[in-house]
């Protein structure tokens, strides 16, 4: 049987309008391109060293 307290803790609050701006700026999820770019940067820096 479901434990109410445990289950209700999983519920996340809704995003309010005042928090939308922050959410947009923080929405910097890395995709494959970002990962590849980072890898390239690292490789280049290693070569320079």
């Amino acid at each position, binding site marked *: *049987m*479901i434990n*109410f307290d445990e*289950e*209700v*803790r999983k*519920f996340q*609050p*809704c*995003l*309010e*309008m005042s*928090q*939308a701006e922050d*959410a*947009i700026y923080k*929405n910097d*999820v*890395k*995709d*494959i*391109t*970002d990962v*590849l*770019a980072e890898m*390239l940067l690292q490789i*280049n820096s290693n070569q320079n060293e």
Partner: protein
Amino acid sequence: MECLNCGAPVLENGHCSACGMNYELLAKAYNTSNFYYNLGLDRARVRDLTGAIDALNSALKYNKQNINARNLLGLIYYEMGETVLGLTQWVISSNYLPEHNIAAKYIQEVQSDSDKLDEANQLAKQYNQALTYAKQGTKDLAFLQLKRILAAYPHFVKGYLLLALLYMDNGNFDKAKKALKRVLRIDKNNTLAVKYLNEMGVSAKDVINMKEASSRIDVDSSYTDEDQFKSDLETFVEKSLQDIDNPEKSKASYREINHNKFNLLYVSVGLILGILAFWLLILPTKLNSANKENRELQLSHSEEISKKNVAISDLEKKIEGLEKQVASVEEAKNEEKAQEEEANSAFEVIKSSIPNTAYENLCSEAGRAVNERRYSDAIEMCNAALQIQQGEVAYYYLGKAYIGNQDEEKAKVAFMNLRDNYPESTYIDEVTEYLSE
């Protein structure tokens, strides 16, 4: 070939001349992103919104600039009642591609109506409040808040899920199922809804049936608990029918019905029916007849009143006529009086203007009669003269005549009249002497 990342030419070794990215890797990543977008689109089309969200998030992990995936994700959030999340996705999308992007249209549509934005914000705040109540254990307040939210925003999936959880905790599984049915209507494969249904003992087959049945729900209509009572009744009827079908359950021992137990019930039902019959059948007809009589009475009274009013107006007219007649008679009388007065005054004027010779003649005749000792003739003439006009001569001869007639008393009266009325008369010495004697 151009680099998919920066647009610069790709070298022969397969790397970008500017950013150095491997073209093949990027192309694979972009293809995978598009694959997940297509998957998400397919899922969204069959209202598997949770599945679509998962697929679209995967698409964005491979290519965060996948505009279609981001726009669709925003649209799904919007459909599930999370407007702010949807707006966030659309804003990011329009930031990556400012022109020819449908996200701009979505943003404009939401922002054009300030009430809509306010409502979305209120919805988020109210839900968060309800969640806080639920976490704090004040479940009644959470119930109230959620019911209010769902009555106004019937697409809000998160709200239904929390409400279902509260009902489940309350032991009210029917109402929890009803809320979850709504969730399945909006989001067919909502994992949390399916999990809760399984927890309540709903089999997978029944969940599928529920999903099919939920398609009949008008998801735009406000959510209330009212129709849940109907479904309770339905389940009761269904259960009863099942019991009847089940021969083991429907078996019951024969028992004689004790009618004496129900006597009081029969009497009270009879009384209620009697009162109802009186109220519904007899009372209205009686009221109608009473109303009719009243109306007739009113009519007859009003007729009498109108007749009397006519008579009164006739009499008033007559009175007016008579008053006019009286006034005219009085006027005529006054005129007559005035004429009479005029006539009298004219008569007096004429009388005064005419020379009075009769008096003088009578006085001279009376003097002659006294000298000839015809005293009684003299008295008559003097009285006649005095009737015509008062004068000293007439009184003088009258007194003389009375002396001659040996009536001293009357003679004195005549001389006294002369003395009093004419003190400067020529006869005054003679008269005074006589009276002093």
